[in-house]
């Protein structure tokens, strides 16, 4: 990465992080704050974009806390990458996995009725630009998200002479 002559980097090009923490309810807020702070490095993101990211991360990490490790807390890994003007986030666990991913993606589907709304994955999918869920029962789940700045300027048409 080439910086400006005064040693600063006027425009962020690429950056990444990896966080790992136990699947405790208190870490839901921690993870969304961490990812929001990271995402804020890309100044094209609006406040609404950042809020979308906070909600999506909150949902995915909550899902790990609730569903992945029925016998007690296990590791949650959150990775973030700023690349080519967008944010990629991966939330993964080594828990029991999702038996039927397609069913889990249906709005209001939940394996824990009570006060769970079954909207976590639906929100994450609606608020982000891309979401893919990969899960192997007994091995864990990986959810990959992409968020692009909503106010990203439209590429101007090529000027022909």
């Amino acid at each position, binding site marked *: 990465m080439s910086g400006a002559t005064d040693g600063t980097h006027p425009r962020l090009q690429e950056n990444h992080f990896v966080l790992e923490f136990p699947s405790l*309810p208190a870490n839901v807020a921690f993870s969304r704050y961490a990812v929001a702070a990271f995402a804020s490095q890309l100044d094209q993101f609006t406040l609404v974009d950042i809020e979308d990211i906070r909600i999506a991360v909150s949902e995915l990490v*909550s899902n790990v806390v609730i569903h992945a490790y029925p016998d007690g807390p296990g590791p949650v890994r959150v990775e973030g990458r700023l690349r080519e003007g967008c944010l990629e986030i991966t939330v993964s666990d080594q828990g029991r996995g999702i038996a039927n991913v397609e069913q889990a993606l249906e709005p209001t589907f939940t394996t824990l009725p009570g006060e769970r709304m079954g909207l976590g994955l639906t929100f994450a999918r609606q608020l982000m630009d891309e979401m893919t869920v990969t899960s192997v029962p007994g091995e864990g789940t990986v959810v990959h998200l992409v968020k692009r700045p909503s106010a990203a300027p439209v590429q101007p048409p090529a000027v022909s002479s």
Partner: protein
Amino acid sequence: MVNLEWVSTPAGPCLVAAISGELDLQTAPLLRTQIEGAWSQHPEARQLILDLSGVTFVDSSGLGAVLGRYRQCVLRGGRMALVGLQPNVRRLFELSGVLRIMEAYNSLDEALPLPREGGGRA
């Protein structure tokens, strides 16, 4: 995080629960236990107002706790209203569709007393 107050109205006691902070997996159970505790002191009460003006973040866990209180209120044959949703919080409530069934008002003055007819105005 949850400040509870009983208000007398012509329709009987109304529980006003002013909630502040962030409503997520960690904090939502507090909303449930505190309001259930207060309800148990006034089994005759039928009205609940959730003042969410101090809530700065909500996700589906928080929404679930709010919807759970609504269901409980309806099961008692009562009514529940929301007050003071901040724009980011309102957005998620709208996205979930719960504002189609719950009354929402801009202020406590508007919500009290809970009208006998008509939906939310905010």
